[in-house]
């Protein structure tokens, strides 16, 4: 789940550096597309804490994302934007409280039923914004963009500077989120989440109140989805009920599946691939969804562990072959004689 060797950290640093260099060569349109991908990556990464790390598949995650964007809309005065030092904590707090409420109820269900209950709660939030005039109803509403500023130093941006500045803000948030989760998973808390994913029943027998740990993970994931939703409000300055709907949750799940369930880098890779795929499909054809669907199906079928699980065929590998799975087998053959002989007096 977490990079374990120096080499993988170096790989991540190079990937981050490449992402940081992108705006220097890309057009403003593509920089904005990059921001869209980074925000999708934040949403998918926040969901990975539940899906890949704890084994909780939620279809209500979009609710916390969209809710954060609506909070920015609701608290921003129509004429001047608030500082993100106000909007970000407010959005994250509301998402966190919503996650606490929804999580404390839906975590009483397990497996498939948990999925359905999160879906139901997510749709309830969706219909609040869809069927009332709170956030402009079905049409959505424009919001006053929050101002990038900390401790009174406000950054005033021209329309031309904004895409690049926001891109870096999003990149920094994504990197911070990644490092935060990598740290979290190495703590005792992270060990408990791993244990719950692998074998929740055993964790209870060992003495863990797994409900509390799952709820904590659910709230943290909801708050991180709030960070992503806030970033979206900053990025597009527009909210509509689509942000809250279950489509958003399903897309985030698809990104995780494409990138890989087994790592924190997976959802980021998946989000970038998914966003890129959507763009390419739109350029090539009018049947965007059809192309997307076919490619996603191919990825999931051919790469069951996602893009991050892709391995070069043996003959294409450089250097010495991977020997990590060789030595364990030998010892086992020796210590196995008793297996299979049932010791029973029935």
């Amino acid at each position, binding site marked *: 789940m977490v990079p374990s060797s120096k080499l993988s950290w170096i790989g991540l640093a190079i990937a981050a550096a490449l992402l940081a260099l992108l705006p220097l060569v890309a057009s403003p349109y593509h920089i904005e597309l990059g921001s869209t991908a980074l925000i999708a990556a934040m949403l998918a990464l926040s969901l990975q804490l539940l899906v890949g790390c704890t084994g909780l598949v939620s279809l209500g995650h979009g609710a916390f994302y969209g809710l954060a964007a609506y909070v920015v809309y609701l608290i921003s005065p129509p004429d001047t934007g608030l500082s993100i030092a106000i909007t970000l904590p407010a959005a994250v707090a509301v998402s966190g409280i919503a996650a606490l409420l929804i999580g404390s109820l839906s975590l009483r269900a397990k497996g498939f039923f948990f999925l359905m209950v999160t879906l139901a709660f997510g749709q309830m939030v969706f219909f609040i914004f869809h069927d009332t005039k709170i956030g402009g109803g079905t049409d959505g509403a424009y919001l006053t963009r929050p101002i990038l500023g900390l401790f009174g130093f406000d950054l005033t941006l021209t329309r031309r500077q904004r895409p690049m500045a926001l891109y870096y803000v999003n990149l920094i948030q994504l990197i911070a989120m990644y490092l935060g989760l990598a740290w*979290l998973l*190495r*703590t*005792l*808390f*992270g*060990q*408990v989440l*791993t*244990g719950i994913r*692998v*074998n929740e*029943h*055993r*964790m*209870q*027998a*060992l*003495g*863990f*109140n*797994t409900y509390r740990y799952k709820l904590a993970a659910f709230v943290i994931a909801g708050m991180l989805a709030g960070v992503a939703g806030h970033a979206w409000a900053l990025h597009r300055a527009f909210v509509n009920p689509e942000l809250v709907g279950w489509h958003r949750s399903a897309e985030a799940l698809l990104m995780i599946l494409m990138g890989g369930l087994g790592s924190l880098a997976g959802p980021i890779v998946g989000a970038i691939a998914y966003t890129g795929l959507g763009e390419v499909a739109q350029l090539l054809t009018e049947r965007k969804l059809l192309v997307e669907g076919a490619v996603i199906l191919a990825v999931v079928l051919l790469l069951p562990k996602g893009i991050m699980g892709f391995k070069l065929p043996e003959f294409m590998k450089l250097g010495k072959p991977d020997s990590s799975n060789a030595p*364990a087998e030998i*010892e*086992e053959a020796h*210590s*196995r*004689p*008793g*297996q*299979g*002989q*049932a*010791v*029973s*007096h*029935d």
Partner: protein
Amino acid sequence: MTDHRSTPLLATHALGRNFGGLSAVRDVSISLHAGELHAVIGPNGAGKSTLVNLLAGAITPSAGRIELVGVDVTKASAHARAHQGIGRSFQRTNIFKPLTVLENVRLGVQAVGADKGSIFRRASNQRNLIERARAALKRVGLDWAEHRAAGTLSHGGQRQLEIAMALASNPKVILLDEPLAGMGPEEGERIAQLLKSLAREHAILLIEHDMDFVFAVADTMTVMVDGQVLASGQPAEIRANAAVQNAYLGGHA
């Protein structure tokens, strides 16, 4: 502790559990004292595993009471009972296969022994927890394998790990559900030695099919048939009991 027989560590009073119309456990009253290895035997379907699940809090009883050191724990959840001093192993190996052997046991130590404030500390720096996990591994003879993924251990190794995980929380009472299942005779001998030494510090309730093994290690025994207690007492009494011989032991005794 002049007379430790006065308060049993673990006791059940008329314990019962129905699954629909079937009463899997009915009117079971047993007690387990400090330093004692108590074996529960009986044919398949006698309700032995249900009894362990009741004692561990994995399922709730339909009738009766469970007391741990005189405290009623009948309603307590599985995780609460682990904190109150019950450790258990499972009949079907139930470990964290992708995690290392040490991580498996460390989780067991952490569950009841971690400081409240350490939950957001790095797991690999928790010397105290790791040392206690190593001690449990050494006890069952698995210390050589601490960095192996648990799933790569031999079957016997995984059974040993089960016991180490039950030990990890340093429980008052250990419930072992067929620790020998699928083990060879040599490994069985090792486990017998281990259980005898463990029973001096923890009370053990053991379920096992291997009669030679049971009669070799048990201090007291309960025989269950059809969810009910048929007889209980010292191994010699059980061996001599005519009803037990008819119902269960067959030609063995």
